[in-house]
């Protein structure tokens, strides 16, 4: 169905863009809110969840080569149940995409252009996403390949450049919280790392599928280290408790940057660099929901579904939340259950167990 082919590197870069962007906006304060100075440990622990999900989704993809989850769900569960679960998955892609759009656009509005209505930002970025998807997976994967570097450098600058404000003694005492609490709060960061399961939808578009699981695990671990560095920087700059109270610690950190006392207030550039990364995350979610919809109904092409789904995503994004506090609350309390404990880990794991069980039965008979 997807005419273009992407390389393994492009897939890894796309997943990196997905796991980093918008996560850095909410994760630092949510981590700090839960376990104060140990937030960076939860960022690292989140990778364990991520690795687990990579293994499950890759194992499923190996069983059904060339098929997306939406296509192999009916093969595992039977047609009616599989199609229904597929539709639920597609809705999940769409709704998470909408959450991301809302989250990022609110961030943009609050930080750099407070007087512009949300809808203006949303419509412009979604129109561009529509254009990107129209011109094919290949082309936006390529642009992401070029721009990811810019995004990561911008975030790294936020982590490193406020060095004169960092006080690492704020990270002490180390691992003060009980392991049970650490693991429980790592589920928040783990559920973001779990967006890696979108790779399942993209694997059939790979030109070569040899090192995918290795690449994805490396990506998950590296992103974990990167986000842990982000947490360390945040906590070292503000202290554990105040970091948890900030709306966007990332942005506050960016405001501390001052180069040679001439170039300060560079946070706008950082935010703009995030646009370049988040755009591809939105594209990935929109792509997966469009492709999934087409596959549920068995359409040969999915391009004609792009426009309605783009509009739907804008609508969802505009109406899901009243404001940032509600979204933060959603991310802290609902999101792990909506993502990690259902769509990202539990359902794929159950599916894999069914497949395993069935193949064992076939072997016995």
């Amino acid at each position, binding site marked *: 169905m997807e005419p273009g082919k992407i*390389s393994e*590197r*492009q897939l890894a870069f796309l997943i990196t863009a997905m796991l980093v962007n918008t996560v850095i906006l909410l994760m630092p304060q949510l981590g700090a809110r839960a376990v104060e100075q140990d937030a960076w440990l939860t960022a690292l622990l989140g990778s364990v969840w991520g690795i687990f999900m990579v293994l499950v989704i890759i194992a499923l993809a190996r069983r059904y080569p060339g098929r997306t989850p939406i296509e192999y769900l009916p093969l595992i569960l039977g047609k009616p149940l599989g199609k229904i679960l597929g539709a639920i998955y597609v809705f999940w892609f769409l709704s998470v995409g909408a959450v991301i759009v809302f989250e990022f656009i609110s961030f*943009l509005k609050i930080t*750099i*252009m407070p007087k*512009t209505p949300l809808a*203006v*930002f949303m419509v*412009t*970025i979604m129109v*561009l996403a529509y*254009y*990107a998807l129209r*011109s*094919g997976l*290949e*082309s*936006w*994967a*390529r*642009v992401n*390949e*070029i*721009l990811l570097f810019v995004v990561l450098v911008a975030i790294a600058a936020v982590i490193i450049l406020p060095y004169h404000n960092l006080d690492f003694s704020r990270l002490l005492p180390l691992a003060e919280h009980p392991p049970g609490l650490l693991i429980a709060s790592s589920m928040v960061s783990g559920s973001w790392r779990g967006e890696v399961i979108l790779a399942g939808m993209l694997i059939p578009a790979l030109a070569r599928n040899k090192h995918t699981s290795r690449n994805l695990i490396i990506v998950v671990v590296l992103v974990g280290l990167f986000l842990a560095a982000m947490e360390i920087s945040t906590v070292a700059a503000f202290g554990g408790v105040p970091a948890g109270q900030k709306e966007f610690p990332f942005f506050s950190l960016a405001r501390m940057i001052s180069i040679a006392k*001439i*170039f300060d*207030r*560079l946070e*706008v*550039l950082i935010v*703009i660099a995030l*646009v*370049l990364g988040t*755009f591809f995350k939105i594209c990935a979610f929109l792509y997966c929901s469009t492709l999934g919809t087409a596959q549920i109904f068995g359409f040969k092409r999915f391009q004609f579904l792009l426009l309605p789904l783009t509009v739907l995503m804008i609508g969802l994004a505009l109406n899901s939340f009243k404001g940032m506090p509600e979204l933060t609350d959603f991310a802290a309390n609902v999101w792990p259950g909506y993502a990690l404990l259902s769509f990202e880990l539990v359902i794929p794991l159950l599916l894999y167990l069914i497949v395993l069980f069935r193949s064992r039965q076939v072997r016995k008979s």
Partner: protein
Amino acid sequence: MLHFLRSINSKAKKIESSGPKEVPPPHDFKGISSNLADNEADLRQEFANISDIVFKQFYAGEVKILAVWFDGLINNRVSQDVFRALMLDIPEKQLLEVPKEERTDLINQHILPFYETQQVKDLAEIKRWILRSKMILLVDGCSSSLMIDAESRPQRSISEPVVEPTVLGPHDGFIENIGVNTALIRSRLGDAMLQSEDYIIGRRTNTQVTLMYVADIANPKIIEEVRKRLTRIDIDGILDSSYIKELIQDRTLTIFPLMKSTERPDAAVADLLEGRFALVVDGSPQVLTAPSVFIEFMQATDDYYMSPTVVWFIRALRYLSIFVATNLPGIYVGLITFHQEMIPIPLVFTIAGTREVVPFPAIVDALFLLIVFEILWESSIRLPRVVGAAINIVGALILGEAAVQSSLVSPTLVIVIAVSAVANFALGSRYDLAQAVRVIRLAILVAGGMMGFYGIALVSLFFLLHMASLRSFGVPYFEPLAPLITRELKDSFYRAPLWSFKKRPVLIAGRDTTRIDTPPPSPPDEHCTAGADSKKRRQKGGK
């Protein structure tokens, strides 16, 4: 009816071997008769109402011969030689001694001392050769005629390239004559594998187009694709190679150049050696080469004639130029309108001071100034050179000076637009890319004025997405940046030393992939180092 007509003589015809040799007989083959008067009548009817055609009848010994050509398109010396050989030098009876049908053979092989000749029997073909400025000899009693290539079209001499001047390297450029152009390429690339195919394109202009490629370097699939696209062309006239470019490139609705047109033979040969093909079009000093990728347009021929370390700096400058040329006005307006806090404080006062008296918002000012600049650019191209100087004075001095003094625009903005324009000219040698930059700059300016940096980011993303979706003969436009081919980055943002270009571009070249196999320079042997003092040399015997 229309379809029938098209199948006869409209499609571009491929000539099997290069040069004016065998042409496959077209569908309407009509042999000429052995009666000269009939043939003359036929030809006169074909060329009725043409005043600059010459029908010259004369006798070679006792045999009547008719020569036909277009006035002014034949080399005078050659035609005089033809007439002298046939009218004066030939023994009286020689042509009568052979059978009538072998008369042209005799003339061709024994009498005329020319190498570019060919026997033609088809009337339509005779007509075509005459139209393509050759001379035709019709011999009485013989049902074949003789084509003599004594072509001498009005042409200028080889001169310095106009669009792509360089300081270092060869200074000859292509001209409007295809023979000269292919010779310029051939003389630089003396390899039997440099193959060429001729096509006649244009129902009415019958323009010759030569496809050149190095057979064992070029990718056969790409060459096959070009052949297919060339034979698909059906047009009345080809006036310049850009017609061909537009008709065969992968996509036309784009501002970016998808085929490189160069007027430098050395650039064309370099492209051929990388596995690209070249299209030489008669009447155009621009030779097309493809597949082209974006970074090629950021390279200049000089880059390979200078020290690589210097070129690092120059390349960096060029990439900075394209960034400044496209983004500076947009960034300035975005800063002034939306992100004032980003401007360093001392600069804020300077800019605010100059903007204080200006009545319009920054975007209006900037658009006004940019459009005035674009108009000036356009007019300075179209105007005769003599008047051009006047435009420069009016544009640069009077307009700029007066606009600032009347406080219609702020001086800072004038600087911004001027810097951006100068940066645009830094890409001058790639004229088609410089045109694309003009469009991008305008788009980014409008976006920056409306939505600040967010708008600029979106518009930049749009252009990047568009470029990433482009292909030139199947090769992704962003190769080797995306898909990333690390090995080939050595000729992108910087240029590595020549000895490190070991392989040809992987997505473009076909079979023979080794480009350079020279070892990197190593420290010299002991006997020729600076330490080789006179004592040692004397011991070795004087040298």
